[in-house]
């Protein structure tokens, strides 16, 4: 390399030479294009998928520990009511559990008890299935929801067992097509409630277990009422008749969310909660979810995912590189005479190396550039057509592009050396 100008004209020459065989150069580049494109696209899709998962987990709150009541399996159930056709079971978390957790486990900020009951909500002639959530006033501070209109349940509602409720906006839209829902009165299980607010749950609780049998509709149709009102109006025992059998379930709390003062307490509190609950529950009729752990798992999974996708994409890049090397070797053979002439006219070995290396690098970087463009478009198309979230990270673009450049150099060195080490006399005589 004598100077910049000479290098630039070598680059120009390389481009010109490659343009001489457009189809061949294009096909050769295709390998790199696919490689780069798949690196970017795969990482974008992987990144998007794990981002979605992480968002869902984060919405559960990384400071929280979620404990849910679970109906114990059939065989271990205590048959306390064997008379006639029917059964009554008692399971799940209790108010005592909540207060014990709050008072004994260090680092607990507060405990949010929740009762979940599937019912039907009625406003004049419109009747819709809904999920009644009996809870306390600080629900919005633990579960991420947006207050759209009015207010949430207040502490005084709880104290006075007020018949007030807060609706999720999508339920309200269906229930009140023509009215302003605020201050309207709705009816659930024969009791009237006043609507005081509208909210939107950010994290749609699709995974929340339904009380009683699942009826399929787990959409955003929550009705929030004060816990005390819920206890007073619905009681703790739910009776269900199917044909001749009567099944009753007695559950005090369906779910409780333990908010820790800091996420550092979460991991120490998790086994403590577990131990405490085993002491007071004969069966394992609860389930503990630690979002922080899920988050860690999701991150580990994502790392694995990225490695797997990345190596698949890297293999395709290497295959592309081998394609380039193959073509360049054929090129060297085909252009032996040219090499001889260039050597005779004063070209040094390193000039020949530079020339061929530049050609390979132009091929691979050209392919890399096209690959980056295609690789950015593919995730957008995927998002548009399947609704899957994709995230194109700048580092994946930089990585794919620099690998393509490196491949040009690595796979170009051998053909370039082969070209330069030709004997000029032999090369000139070559037909």
């Amino acid at each position, binding site marked *: 390399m004598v100077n910049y100008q000479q290098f630039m004209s070598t680059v120009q*020459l390389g481009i*010109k030479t490659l343009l001489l065989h457009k189809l061949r150069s294009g096909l050769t580049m295709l390998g790199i294009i696919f490689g780069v494109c798949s690196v970017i696209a795969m990482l974008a899709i992987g990144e998007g998928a794990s981002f979605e998962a992480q968002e869902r987990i984060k919405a559960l709150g990384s400071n929280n520990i979620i404990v849910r009541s679970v109906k114990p399996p059939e065989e271990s159930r205590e048959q306390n009511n064997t008379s006639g056709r029917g059964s009554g079971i008692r399971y799940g978390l209790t108010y005592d559990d909540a207060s014990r957790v709050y008072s004994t486990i260090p680092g607990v900020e507060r405990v949010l008890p929740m009762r979940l009951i599937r019912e039907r909500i009625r406003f004049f002639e419109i009747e819709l299935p809904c999920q009644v959530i009996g809870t306390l006033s600080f629900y919005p501070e633990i579960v991420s929801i947006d207050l759209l209109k009015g207010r949430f349940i207040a502490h005084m509602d709880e104290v006075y067992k007020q018949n007030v409720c807060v609706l999720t906006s999508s339920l309200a839209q269906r229930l009140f097509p023509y009215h302003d829902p605020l201050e309207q009165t709705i009816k659930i299980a024969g009791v009237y409630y006043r609507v005081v607010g509208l909210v939107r749950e950010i994290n749609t609780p699709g995974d929340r277990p339904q009380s009683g049998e699942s009826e399929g509709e787990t959409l955003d149709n929550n009705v929030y009422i004060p816990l005390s009102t819920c206890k007073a109006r619905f009681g703790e025992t739910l009776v269900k008749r199917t044909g001749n059998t009567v099944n009753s379930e007695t559950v005090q709390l369906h779910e409780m969310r333990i908010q820790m003062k800091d996420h550092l307490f979460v991991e120490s509190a998790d086994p403590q909660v577990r131990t405490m609950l085993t002491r007071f529950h004969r069966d394992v009729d609860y389930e503990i979810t630690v979002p922080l752990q899920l988050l860690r798992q999701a991150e580990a999974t994502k790392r694995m995912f990225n490695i797997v996708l990345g190596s698949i994409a890297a293999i395709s890049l290497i295959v592309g590189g081998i394609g380039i090397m193959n073509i360049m070797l054929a090129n060297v053979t085909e252009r032996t005479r040219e090499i001889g*002439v*260039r050597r005779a*006219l004063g070209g040094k070995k*390193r000039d020949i190396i530079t020339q061929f290396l530049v050609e390979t690098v132009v091929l691979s970087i050209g392919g890399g550039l096209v690959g980056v463009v295609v690789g950015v478009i593919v995730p957008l198309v995927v998002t548009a057509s399947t609704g899957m979230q994709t995230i194109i990270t700048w580092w994946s673009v930089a990585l794919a592009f620099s690998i393509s450049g490196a491949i040009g150099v690595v796979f170009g060195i051998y053909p370039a050396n082969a070209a330069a080490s030709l004997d000029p*006399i032999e090369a*000139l005589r070559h037909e």
Partner: protein
Amino acid sequence: MAEDPIIKIEGIERKYVMGDDIEVMALDGVNISIHQGEYVAIMGPSGSGKSTMLNLLGCLDRPTAGSYWLGGEDVAKMDDDSLSDVRGRRIGFIFQSYNLIAQLTVLENIQVPLFYQGKSMAESYDRCVKLANLVGLGERLTHRPNQLSGGQQQRVAIARSLVNDPLMILADEPTGNLDSKTGLEVLDLIDDLNDDGKTIVLVTHDNYVAERAHRVIHMKDGHVDREEIKRQAGESRQKVYKRR
């Protein structure tokens, strides 16, 4: 001749090792000296060492023994890079099959030797255009070799051989691929160059081509068999070239 010769070859040998212990002596103690402005033809049957001589003269090969002084430099012992450099600065090549570079235009082909001396196209443009005009291709600067006839391609090659202002032009059967008419034109062009003071060394097996030289060196079995003086330097050349 008063001045020192520009090419002085003394006792040069070139040995090829074929297989394990078979050695072939392609050149066995050749002495040649060529002066500035001379027109020398080298002739000989195949296997006479003619090609080996050409390669050595063109600094494409190194002798196994002996010395080769080219314009005051001993090139016999030079390394590969220095030889490239000498070829680029001191020698102009004209090949039988033109050997233009397919992807370059006429102008760019002419510029190649200067490119390897680190000169940009902008710096060498004027000179290249002048030479293209000299060989009568001033109108075809942007043509590609495959758009030119054989005679035109050889003219480009001649322009290219001149671009670095070489000590000697080394022509290897320059008319071998041409029909007799264009062959004559090319030889006339070479004659003109010689008249302008260029030193020409031409390798051929064609007597009519060799007729134009001042001196013909006949080679045989790796030796200089005899030297034939056709005319003295400065004496008008004989226009006797005819194709068989």
